[in-house]
Every structure is written in C-alpha cells, then in structure tokens.
C-alpha cells in the first residue's frame, strides 16, 4: 500500500499584457492606413446624437462614394449591436460601407475593424469613417488604429455630459456639437457646454453643425486632416 502525494502546483511566471492583443491589431491597422494615406476617423457618441445623419450629409456634400465626382472619397464602417439600418442608409449615398454587428458587445475593437478594412479594401487617400457603437463609455478604451477620434454630442444631451463621461472627450481630437438648429427650443447654454468640453480636454477642437446650416467648420477640419494625411 502506498499513498499518492498529489503533485504540487508550481508558479509559472507569465507577465503578458491582456490588452496587448487589441493594441497589436490597432498598430497593424494604423500602419496599413498610414501606408495608404487614409484618414480614419473613429466617431464616438451616445446613441441618437446624429452620427449617421452627419455622415450622410457629409458624404453627399463632399463626396459621392466611389463615383469619383466629389472632393473626397468616403468609405464607412458602421458599428451597431444589431441591424444593418445604418449601413443601408449609407449605401444610399453611394459610399462603400460595411456593417459590423457586435451582438452583446458595446464597442468596436481593432480586430473587428481589421476585418472590415479587409472587406472594404479602401484606396489611397480616402476617408475611412468608422461609426462606433452608440456609447460614451467603452469605445474610449479601445484603440482601433484610427488617425483621429471625433466625439459627437447633440445640444439636447445636456451641458454636463463631457464632465460625466470624461474619457470619451479626453481621448478625442475633435468635438462636433450637432443639432444646433434646436437651440431656440432648449435651455442649453452653448458656452457652458463648450467650457465643459475644454475642461476635460483643453486641446480639443470644437465645431458645430446642424442640418439647417452649412457645416463649413466641420468641412474645414476634414480638409486639414486630409492635407496632413497625404502630406506624409
């Protein structure tokens, strides 16, 4: 008779970064996009801020997708938990679009974007507009490999949202304030909203848009971003 002594567990040192996988994919995306001088914009906002509407308007004003008649060419990646509703809307503009459904997921990650980029195969010098899942919390944490981050907030959302959701605003390069045509019906003080955005991110640029007026400041920002990309 003998007693079996269980094999003792041994400590194995791993030291591996868990987020490393997303960051490595993001770097690959960034390298690919930079190589093709593509301006990739990660558009973040709450649901209903007007991301898709802004995209539809921008594409019809500045480009016409792949038909070669506009100032710029736009390709789009649409992110939503469910439905292809937004991709259908973008398709009407003529721009090439891929819909990514995250299911239970609350944000796009670099792997999803890598697969979408493969499907789109965007040409040199185009704009790649990545409309993230409507969410002001999680998308801020995931690098997609984008050129710049744009946070979008509408005037109906309240002046204090930048303070409540600082990560989204702190990590963005541009803030687009939408639906300014509704200001006469609201108590919102635009100066307070702008101040709150700048409190969280002093270096961010801010532009305003509405479907009732021109989007000149937004267009000017896009043109500057494009110039920087193709000048590399």
């Amino acid at each position, binding site marked *: 008779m003998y007693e079996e002594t*269980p*094999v*003792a*567990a*041994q*400590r*194995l*040192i*791993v*030291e*591996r*970064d*868990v*987020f490393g996988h997303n960051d490595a994919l993001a770097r690959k995306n960034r390298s690919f996009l930079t190589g093709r001088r593509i301006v990739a914009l990660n558009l973040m906002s709450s649901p209903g801020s007007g991301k898709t509407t802004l995209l539809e308007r921008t594409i019809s004003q500045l480009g016409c997708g792949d038909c070669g008649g506009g100032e710029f060419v736009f390709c789009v990646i649409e992110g939503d938990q469910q439905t292809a509703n937004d991709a259908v809307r973008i398709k009407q503009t003529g721009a090439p679009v891929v819909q990514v459904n995250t299911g239970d997921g609350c944000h796009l990650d670099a792997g999803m974007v890598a697969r979408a980029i493969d499907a789109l195969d965007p040409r040199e010098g185009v704009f790649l507009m990545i409309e993230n899942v409507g969410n002001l919390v999680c998308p801020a*944490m995931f690098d997609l490999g984008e050129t710049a981050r744009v946070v979008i907030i509408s005037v109906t959302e309240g002046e204090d949202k930048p303070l409540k959701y*600082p*990560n989204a605003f*702190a990590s963005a390069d541009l803030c687009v304030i939408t639906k300014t045509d509704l200001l006469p019906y609201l108590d919102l003080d635009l100066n307070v909203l702008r101040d709150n955005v700048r*409190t*969280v*991110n*002093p*270096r961010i640029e801010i532009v305003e848009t509405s479907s009732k007026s021109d989007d000149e400041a937004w267009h000017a920002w896009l043109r500057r971003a494009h110039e920087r990309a193709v000048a590399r």
Partner: protein
Amino acid sequence: MAVEFARANGRHEIVQIELDVGECCGVMPEALALGFESARKGTMAQDARLAINRLPGVARCAACGRERAAAGYAGPCPACGSARAEIAAGREFRLKSIDAR
C-alpha cells in the same frame, strides 16, 4: 490566455491565476471576478483561485509635473489646475502568473 500558457507548459490543471490590475486600466475587479466565474467553467481553471494585485494609479501633470494618485479619470491638477495629464502608472492589465500542475 492562462489555459493556453498552462497547456504550452505541459500542465493540465490551474490552481491559481494571478493578475496585475492597475487602477487606471479601465477594468473593474468585481466585474472581472464575476466574468471569471463564468469563463472558468469547463476549463482546466474551473477550480482556480483568482488573485488580483491592485496597482496604484499615478497621473503626472503635463503642465507642472506634479504627480497625484489617480483611479480612472484623473481630473484637474490640484497644484496648477491643468487638465492635461499623463498616466504615469496604473494602466497595467497583465496576466502575471499561474499556479499549475
């Protein structure tokens, strides 16, 4: 990740998983522990203990250089009021070690 590593090292049972979770990495330990309960089922880590090392977050003011403790969003610098800060420590989210046989 832990299971892959254990397998690669010829182990078939994980007794403990040790993680470094910084206070500025965006991961909430309670949520992580809850997820772990589900994720470990049916794997070689199904009876493993989860050991989390909470690493302190430090934000360094980009304007005046003063460092301050931070967890998540750092807020303005208490010395000069600047909102520009770099996270000097606390971004870690690392599988540090596994105890396996």
